[in-house]
Every structure is written in structure tokens, then in C-alpha cells.
């Protein structure tokens, strides 16, 4: 297993810049997830790492070995990069058995013929497919094909594993099960991996670290917790989970706190960080589950408390989503099902200041 270092990576198709000066470091044994909306450049980045796409500029090194270096004129073909990859379509070859699919990388490298069956069986055992070795891909399910693809990517003990939206063709329940299995396998074998997905839940479930991409740029990189609780900007706050984004201006800064007056004249007390100067245009992100709905304003509470009106209530079984109107601002709250308010009810919303995230960009 090796680390991965990407420096100054850029890719243009014609006049379109798909990746713009991207820098990324993945530690040995780490699972890094690239997440972002479609067209953000995450798959192109992955394909550049695999050598399936050639960047316009930049350098990619697996361990200490430079596999792509535009300036140096280095471009190692995919088959010499010692990587494994799981594709969105699984790409299990339909004219070969499960066994032959998994044996393929070993035979291509030319490992001693006698060791092939043993290594294939070990790989198939890892993904619990050892009993289906002689089947063809048309005779196994989508989930099983996915496991074949996984075994094939692992069998030659690659230095790096790449996952290109591997679960997007599976149905919902299988997807949840498979992402747990991939994570367990990664913990167990300790491989370095870059995993691309557009699904932010999947990203959080599987990642050691997440890199959120937008229009060819990494907007934030950090642990799932960091990304969710402390988004660095409006894009990340909006993309990772649902949130209420309140637009406004800093009206006062005192101690560790600031007051933001929103465009709908709501005063929001937030924990102030660096750069919160009076008069600066900012956004405040409030997660729907951070807020609560009450019928009476709690007197003297340190929390932000605003009067509002319920406009829509959606029952989801474990939670209720209230769409509120707070002084003309749409505001969503995920509340427990114990207190029920109907549409039209006059209520109060309460949010602790430390759950109101000040976003400077």
C-alpha cells in the first residue's frame, strides 16, 4: 500500500476546465472520498489517477513513484500503475467466468501459474463468492457482480484502489450493506483508496476523509464530522446534508459572539470566528435538526428564539419536517414526533448559537 500525492492537477476538454489546479494528499491506508455534484470533476480526477485520462497539467505520484508528470513528460500507462479499480458498471467481462475475471490481473502480470488458483480463491473468499467461481456474469446478481469487481481489483495486491461510484447501480438496501462491507474490508486489509460518489450520505458513511469538489476545485477537505458540523462555505453546507441558509450582514461583534442581521430582519447570534467584521456580508447555516419548535418563547434563554408560522408539516415516521415562515424566511426544522403542530400554527423556533455556523464565503 502506498500514499497518493496529486499536485497542481488540471484538465481541460476544449475550452472547458474540468479540473483546476487540484492538490490532494492521501495517506497510506486512508479511504478518501471525492464527493460533489455531477460535472464537478471528481470522476475525471479519478480517471487521471488511473491513467485512463491524461491531465493537461500537474503531477500524480503513487508512493514515491511519479505516474503522471506533465512537466517531466511522464505518463505511465494504466496497466503499469499497480492499481485496482471498481467501475460504476462493474465491468465484469461477460465472456469469462468469475474465476477468470478475478485471475485476469494475475495472468496479465505473469505470476507463477501454480499460484493463481490459490490467490483467486483467497480473493473470492474475501468477498464471500468462493462458491460461485465457475459462474458467468449473466448467471449472478448485480450485487454479486459488484463483489467480483471488488475481488478482481484486490487480487494483485495493488498499491492503490480506486472506486468510481461503485454502488450507484445497486438498489437502496444493497447499497447500504455493500458500503459497510467495503469499509470493513478496507479496515481489515488496510488499503489506500480513493472513492468517488455523488451521494453525500455514502461519502460520510465510508470515508476517513472527504474532499468536497465543485467545478473542478476542492472546496473543503476533512473528516465527515468536520465537513458536516463545520462546513467552510455555502457550497459545502448546502451540498452535505440539508440546511437552512440565512443571508445577512454582521451587525455586531462582541467577545466570542457576533450578531448577524439577515435580509429578512432576523437577528442571529452566532459563535464568531476570524474575519467576522461588522458590515461584512455573510451566510449563516442552521441544520434542521439543530433547531426546535415550541409553542411559548422560553424566557431569558441564551438561544436564538424567533416567532414563526408553520406552513407545511411532513410526517416521516421517525421525524416530522416543519416548513416554517420566520419573518418571510423559509426555515425547515426536523423535530421529534412528540409535539405535533398543524399548518397555520403560530410557534417559536429555538437554535443554540453554537449550532449556527457563520459562513464567510
Amino acid at each position, binding site marked *: 500500500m502506498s500514499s497518493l500525492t496529486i499536485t497542481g492537477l488540471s484538465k481541460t476538454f476544449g475550452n472547458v476546465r474540468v479540473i483546476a489546479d487540484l492538490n490532494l494528499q492521501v495517506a497510506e491506508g486512508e479511504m478518501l472520498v471525492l464527493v460533489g455534484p455531477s460535472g464537478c470533476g471528481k470522476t475525471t480526477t479519478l480517471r487521471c489517477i488511473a*491513467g485512463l485520462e491524461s491531465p493537461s497539467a500537474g503531477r500524480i505520484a503513487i508512493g514515491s513513484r511519479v505516474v503522471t508528470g506533465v512537466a517531466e513528460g511522464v505518463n505511465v500507462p494504466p496497466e503499469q500503475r499497480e492499481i485496482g479499480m471498481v467501475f460504476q*458498471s462493474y465491468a465484469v467481462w461477460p465472456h469469462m467466468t468469475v474465476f477468470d475475471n478475478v485471475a*485476469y490481473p494475475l495472468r496479465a502480470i505473469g505470476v507463477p501459474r501454480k499460484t493463481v488458483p490459490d490467490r483467486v480463491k483467497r480473493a473470492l473468499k474475501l468477498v464471500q463468492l468462493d462458491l460461485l467461481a465457475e459462474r458467468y456474469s449473466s448467471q449472478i446478481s448485480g450485487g454479486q457482480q459488484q463483489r467480483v469487481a471488488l475481488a478482481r481489483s484486490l487480487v494483485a495486491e495493488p498499491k492503490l484502489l480506486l472506486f468510481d461510484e461503485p454502488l450507484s447501480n445497486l438498489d437502496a438496501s444493497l447499497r447500504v450493506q455493500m458500503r459497510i462491507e467495503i469499509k470493513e474490508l478496507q479496515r481489515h486489509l488496510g488499503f489506500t483508496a480513493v472513492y468517488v460518489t455523488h451521494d453525500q450520505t455514502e461519502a460520510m458513511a465510508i470515508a476517513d476523509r472527504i474532499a468536497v469538489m465543485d467545478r473542478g476545485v476542492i472546496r473543503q477537505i476533512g473528516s465527515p464530522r468536520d465537513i458536516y458540523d463545520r462546513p467552510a462555505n455555502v457550497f459545502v453546507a448546502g451540498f452535505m446534508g440539508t440546511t437552512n441558509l440565512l443571508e445577512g450582514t454582521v451587525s455586531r461583534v462582541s467577545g466570542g459572539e457576533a450578531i448577524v442581521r439577515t435580509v429578512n430582519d432576523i437577528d442571529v447570534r452566532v459563535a464568531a470566528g476570524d474575519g467576522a467584521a461588522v458590515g461584512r456580508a455573510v451566510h449563516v447555516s442552521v441544520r434542521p435538526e439543530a433547531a426546535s419548535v415550541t409553542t411559548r418563547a422560553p424566557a431569558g434563554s441564551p438561544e436564538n428564539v424567533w416567532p414563526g408560522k408553520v406552513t407545511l408539516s411532513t410526517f416521516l415516521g421517525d421525524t416530522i419536517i416543519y416548513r416554517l415562515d420566520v419573518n418571510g424566511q423559509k426555515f425547515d426544522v426536523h423535530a421529534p414526533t412528540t409535539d405535533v403542530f398543524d399548518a397555520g400554527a403560530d410557534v417559536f423556533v429555538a437554535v443554540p448559537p453554537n449550532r449556527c455556523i457563520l459562513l464567510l464565503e
Partner: protein
Amino acid sequence: MADPGAPSAVHESAARAPGFVTRLRFSGATPTEVVTIAVLALLVLWLVLYPVGWLAWGAFHSGPPGAAESWTLANFREVFLDPNHWVVVWRSIVVGTGVTVLATAIGAPLAWLTVKTDLPGKRWVELSAIVPFFTSTFIGALAWILLGNPTNGVLKLWFGIPINVYSVGGIIWVTSLYLAPYMYLFTAAALRNMDTTFEEASFMSGAGLWRTLTRITFPLILPALLSGMTLVFVISMGIFGVAAILGFPARISLLATDIYVRALLIPPRFGAATVSAMTLVIITAALVMLQRWILRGGSYTLVSGRGFRIKLYGLGKWTPVAHAWCFLYALLAVILPVLVLIKVSLQPYPTPRFGPWTLENWTVFFNNDNLYGTLLRSLYLSTGGATLCVLLTAVIAYIIHRSRAPGRRLLEQVSVMPIGIPGIVMGLAMIWAYVTWPIWGTLWVVIVAYLTLFMPYGVRALGANIVQIHPELEESSRVHRASWFRTFRLVMLPLLRPGIYSTWILLFIIFIREISAAVLLTTTNTRLFPVLIFEQWSAGAFNIMCAGALLLTIIMFAVIMLFKWGFKVDVMPSYR
């Protein structure tokens, strides 16, 4: 990373002016790939441009190929100042246009009926729309002499239908019957690939059948229709067999026969024939370019998503009408011609009467010393030629659709160029190009001509198969340690096998029945089977000729059945 400033400066200059070498290095192409592309590109450029270049050169020279003397414009004077030439040009354009319109009128409705409606017995309809493709215009024309000649044609004497195939109309009629399958194939493929929701959305928006057909279906299949029509026009302009068999007796000259006659005059007028050929190729090339220009925006993506259903229109009370239409076509293109060929091949002289009967034609035919040699030669040529052509076009199609190396666009453009070159023109060009080569007078020169002429068919048919294979199947191979060549051998070729088989049969059939390019190229030592049949016709041996035409049909049919049952390959040429 030690010096982040330095590399980025290089990046910028590289980004500003990506030269050929830079593009090559960063196209992801391996040395094997680059060498393969370079060799193929040179080969294809050679195959296409060398004879065409010689043709242009020959037009400006006096003297025959191989012994050309000096630069001259005399050839142009001889042809262009002859008012009769322009009559011939005009007549050829009329024939080409007429065939294109009539073949579309026959083929496109058949395609719509089989793909989009609930017509019962579709398999038979489909079969009757395809079989004429394998019978060929040449054999069709032979049969139609017997059916539709004005003095003792079967149709006139038995059914009182007064038609005369020895006319411009007759040429258009017979050619259309046997080129209609092209229109059927192009239209059916487009209709089959079209997502039905486009039409359903039209119905949901309140449009009726007619409005949906004219506003939605037709515009969406228009690119495919235009491609098919261009192909049909070019083929019909260069078709020799029909033009000769139906045109010579009535002294109706078309460009294809005009070239032939000028080249075989005594003494031969090669220069004039070449200028005539230039006229022909300029018309067809202009049309191909026009079609490219019309479709310059690229064709629509008709396929969206997977596993869509094909909407079936209920024909209801119109079913018998549709059946009658399909049956009439099968009757005129296949059933009557084959029956009349069988009948006359068993009679001692051409007669519309029923009897007397004899096996003499067949015995004469089988005792002819020329026959076995010619038949074997045709089989060798078609087997070997089709194999070479499939190998060549498989690699070309693969590169066109899957490589990202620079140069592939050029390869694509050059490899489909022969679509615009009529067969007879290629025959003449080959004489100019290779008459001084040692392969001249051997079968190799015929193979090279056919390879060049029919390369586009292989490239298209295989290309249609290659795009069906998900790119990730190959990428996965590359990532998992296999080289470009190993990927081609272990992943691409096996997945492409059915497509390779069906393309091989298509090419085999096209090769074995081809006559337009062969008439000028073959000598007594390299005579091919269709040419032998043509010579029997020239000698007036109609009954023997019928036996030959039937034998050729039987061979083609046998090969198709062999593949259908032996290799389980469906013989449906696929186009894109």
C-alpha cells in the same frame, strides 16, 4: 513539488500550444497503439488515394495506362464537347434520383411496419425485405429480362401487363427493387434505436398518428434516412450489371456503361473513359459531402437509457393492406424472379411457354471447363477477401471508436471515402494505378480493389457493434494490468465475435456477387463467376445464364444458412 514554480511555467506553455508530439504523449496511447494507427493510416491512405490520384492523373494524359505519353486536355475535349455525354450525365442523375426515391418509398414503410406495428408474421416480412439484398441487382436484372421484356416477357404474355424493362424506367424499377433493402436496414435500425417515449410524449401532448409521424418520428430518423439515401444514390450511379443488361439492347447509355464502353472500344479510349469516370465520381463525391454538410451537427442520440419498449401501433383493419404491400414486394423482388430463373434454366431456349423441359443447360454449365476454375476462384476471392477486410476494418473501427490517439479522425474520414466511389470507377482507377505492378493480372489486384471499395461497409458494421460494448469493460482490463494489445485480444475480440461473423458474411456476399468493379479488372485468367454469367448473357446464352445466376444465388444462400445454423449468427447487416 520541490520547485512548484518551474513546472507550472512549463504547463502553461504546453497548454498554450499542444503540439502533435505533446498530444501524442498525453493521449494515453501506448507505442503499440501509435504504431498500429500510423501503419493503418498509411495503408488506408494508400488504398484510397493512390488509385484515385492515378485516375486524376490519367484524365490529363494521352495513351493507355502504363504507357501514358504526355500531358493533354484532349480527353476532356473529347468527352465534354460531345453533347451526348451531357445527355448521359443527365440520364444517370435521373436514374440515381429515381432509384433513391423509389427504394426509399419501398424500404422505409416496410421498416416502419416491421419495427413499429403489430403486423403478424413479421419474421417473414423481415426476411422478404432482406433477401433481395443478397440476391443483388445483377441477378435481379437477369430475371427481369425474362419477366418484363416487351416482346415475350412472362408478365406480358401471361398476365397482359405491358411493361418494357429495356428503358430508363425499367432500369430504375429493377435497381430500386434490389436497393430497397438498404433503405429498409437504415430505417429499421434508426427506428429500433429510437426511444419510444419521444413518440409517447407526442401522443400525450394531443398529437395524432400523422402529426407524430411527420413531426417526431420522421425528423428523428432523418439522419439515418439521409445516410441510406446517399449510399443508394452512389450505388445506383455506379451500378454496371443492370445498366448493361437493360441498357445495351435499347442503346440507353449511363455513366457506368459509358466508362465500360469507352475503355473496351477498339482501340480503347482510356483517357475518355477516365474523364467520364471523373464526371461520375465528382457527382457522387459532391453528394456525399452535401450529406455530411447537412448532418454536420452530428446525428441525434436516439438511444436514451436502457431497456425501453418499442411502441406497437395497432394496424387493425389495415393489416391485410400491409400484408399485401409486403407480399407484393416479396413477389416482385424474390419469388417471381427466382421462379422464372428456375423455369428458364430448365428449358432449351428462352420461351414464355411452359415446357419443353431439359437439363441440358445445367450439364453444359457443369461440363464447361471454365466453370469450376471460375467458381473456385470466386470462392477463394470472397473467402480470403472478406477475411482480410474484416481483419483490417475491425482494427480501424476499433481505433475510430475507442482510441484517443491523434490521427484517428483522419483514419475515419479516409476509410469511409470509398462510399463515394462507384465500383466501375474504382475498376478503372485500379488499372491506372497497378497496371505496371507485378500484381497486375492476378487476383490480388481484384482483392485490393474490393478491399478498398467495401472497407466502409466493414468499418460501419463493426463500428455499430463496437459502440455496443461498454468502454469500462476495456478500461477495467487496462487498469488490471493488461496492455493495449492484450486488452484488444482478450476482451475486445471475444466480445466482438458475433459482430465479426455477421460482418464477414455481409462482406462475403458483397464480394462474391460484385460485378461493377470486376468487369474492367478481370482477364481470362482471373475471370470471376458474375463476369462469367455476364459473358453468357453477352453471347446470348440466356438459358445457361439462368443456371449460373441460380447457382450464385444458391451459394450465397448456403453460406448464410451455414452461419445461421452453424455459428448461430444472424445475418442482419447492421448500420449506424
